């Protein structure tokens, strides 16, 4: 253990924590004014719910001693045996709890990402139950598969900082939610433009800032891998802006500010699984293509008449999938290397297996949770409450009194 690495991981954890309020603003700004506070509440509540769930049973399910390459056991329930001073099984340069809390921040933001799919129409009570269940039976297992000694890590699928665990997982859950929730009232006929562009950009700025902790922190040490992850994170985000802005300029006739913010996020999503495995030049390509692809994916869903309110699938699902694939395509170019004895084709195949597995799990289990909630307590607020807006209807508050 050394102070540099401990300082690094704690500060990286703080940065990742900040991403959730950042996301709250990003999503809140994209929503309509009458749902601004409720949309922000979704993300903020994830800090409360997942923050407690993680230390109680989330961490042990994801990172407890392996059971059948599928899930962790209950050894670390309530953090028992997870020391604040001694290293744990995942990193010997820092106390076990430092690793635990860094991972906990990921467990907070991932369900928060999903909330963009059902923004502006979900019942708050259903949301609370959904989030508890989703962290427990969608997030924790996938985290275990990839990083906790599960089968995907075993297989050799690469996911540096959460392309599968965080982005495909949340993005595909969003797709399931879009299907099961159905469209918002007025979708496709009424304008549902972002109500606060500066708030969206501020949110994107905080996400970008926090993402340095997310990606470079995933090196779990203040070393060359962290440096590389940091550099490619910044570069891919920059390239993502250029990609999305160019698309909006070409196809929608004007360079979009919301597009710039979305493009940065798309670039950041795509570089996430690759950050420790590729160098700066591939990161430009990864970010640029992410900006283009996510723009197209978000539009595709709308043309399919599916209402993923804040384009979570387009940005995180497709961006994450592209990133996971690109990790296989570019690993070793400029940084890192293919695992000994693994050909590139084989690596790409491993990536595809991981992608398919995550898509399937996230889609099916999320759908089941939502379907059960739908037939029991119900998922959506009443039509009248939806027209009034969730801020007043669900929280008795008004976002702005200017």
């Amino acid at each position: 253990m050394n102070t540099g690495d401990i300082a690094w991981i704690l500060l990286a954890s703080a940065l990742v924590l900040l991403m959730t309020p950042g996301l709250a603003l990003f999503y809140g700004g994209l929503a309509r004014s009458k749902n601004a506070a409720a949309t922000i509440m979704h993300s903020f509540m994830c800090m409360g719910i997942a923050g407690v769930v993680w230390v109680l049973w989330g961490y042990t399910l994801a990172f407890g001693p392996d059971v059948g390459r599928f899930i962790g056991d209950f050894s670390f329930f309530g953090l028992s045996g997870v020391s604040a001073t001694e290293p744990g099984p995942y990193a010997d340069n820092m106390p076990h709890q430092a690793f635990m809390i860094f991972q906990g921040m990921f467990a907070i933001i991932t369900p928060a990402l999903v909330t963009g799919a059902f923004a502006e129409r979900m019942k708050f009570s259903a949301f609370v139950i959904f989030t508890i269940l989703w962290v427990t039976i969608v997030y924790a297992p996938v985290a275990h598969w990839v990083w906790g000694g599960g089968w995907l890590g075993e297989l050799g699928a690469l996911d540096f900082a959460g392309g599968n665990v965080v982005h495909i997982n949340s993005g595909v859950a969003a797709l399931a939610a879009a299907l099961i929730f159905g469209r918002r009232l007025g979708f496709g006929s009424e304008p549902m433009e972002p109500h606060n562009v500066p708030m969206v950009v501020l949110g994107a700025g905080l996400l970008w800032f926090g993402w340095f902790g997310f990606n470079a922190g995933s090196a779990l040490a203040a070393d060359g891998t962290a440096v590389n992850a940091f550099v490619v994170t910044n570069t891919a985000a920059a390239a993502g802006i250029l990609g999305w802005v160019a698309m909006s300029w070409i196809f929608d006739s004007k360079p979009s500010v919301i597009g710039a913010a979305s493009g940065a996020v798309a670039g950041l999503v795509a570089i996430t699984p690759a950050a420790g495995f590729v160098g700066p030049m591939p990161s430009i390509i990864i970010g640029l293509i992410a900006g283009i692809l996510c723009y197209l994916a978000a539009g595709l869903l709308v043309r399919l008449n599916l209402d993923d309110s804040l384009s979570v699938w387009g940005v995180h699902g497709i961006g994450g999938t592209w990133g996971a694939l690109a990790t296989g395509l570019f690993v070793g170019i400029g940084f890192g290397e293919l695992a000994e004895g693994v050909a590139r084709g084989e690596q790409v195949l491993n990536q595809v297996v991981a992608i398919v597995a995550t898509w399937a799990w996230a889609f099916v289990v999320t759908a089941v949770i939502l379907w059960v909630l739908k037939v029991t307590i119900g998922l959506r607020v009443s039509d009248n409450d939806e027209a009034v807006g969730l801020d007043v209807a669900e929280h008795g508050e008004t976002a702005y009194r200017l």
Partner: protein
Amino acid sequence: MKKIEAIIRPERVNHVKDALVDAGFSGLTTTQVTGRGAQRGIVHTGRSGQSITIDMLPKVKLEMVVTNEHLDQAISVIVKAARTGEIGDGKIFVQPVEQVIRVRTGEEGEAAV
């Protein structure tokens, strides 16, 4: 007395206000409104490439109470300063006003305008 209610383009408000003051009309009140009219089909493309026709556009409502004798002059000043010739220039409505009171002094009628 009459109340002139003019719904105009936000970007013309300063012109109109300046023109009115030059013509001797200083008192007026403006409100931010949104309006729909012949001006249609502003197709907006959202974050996700979703195209929606936005039919409600931001406008400014300018209200001004004038004496009957000044009515025509005021209208022509507004029309001149607000016009661009493009659809969406707006409308002017004239309504009767029966009484005017200045709160500060309690003055009534034309003296209060």
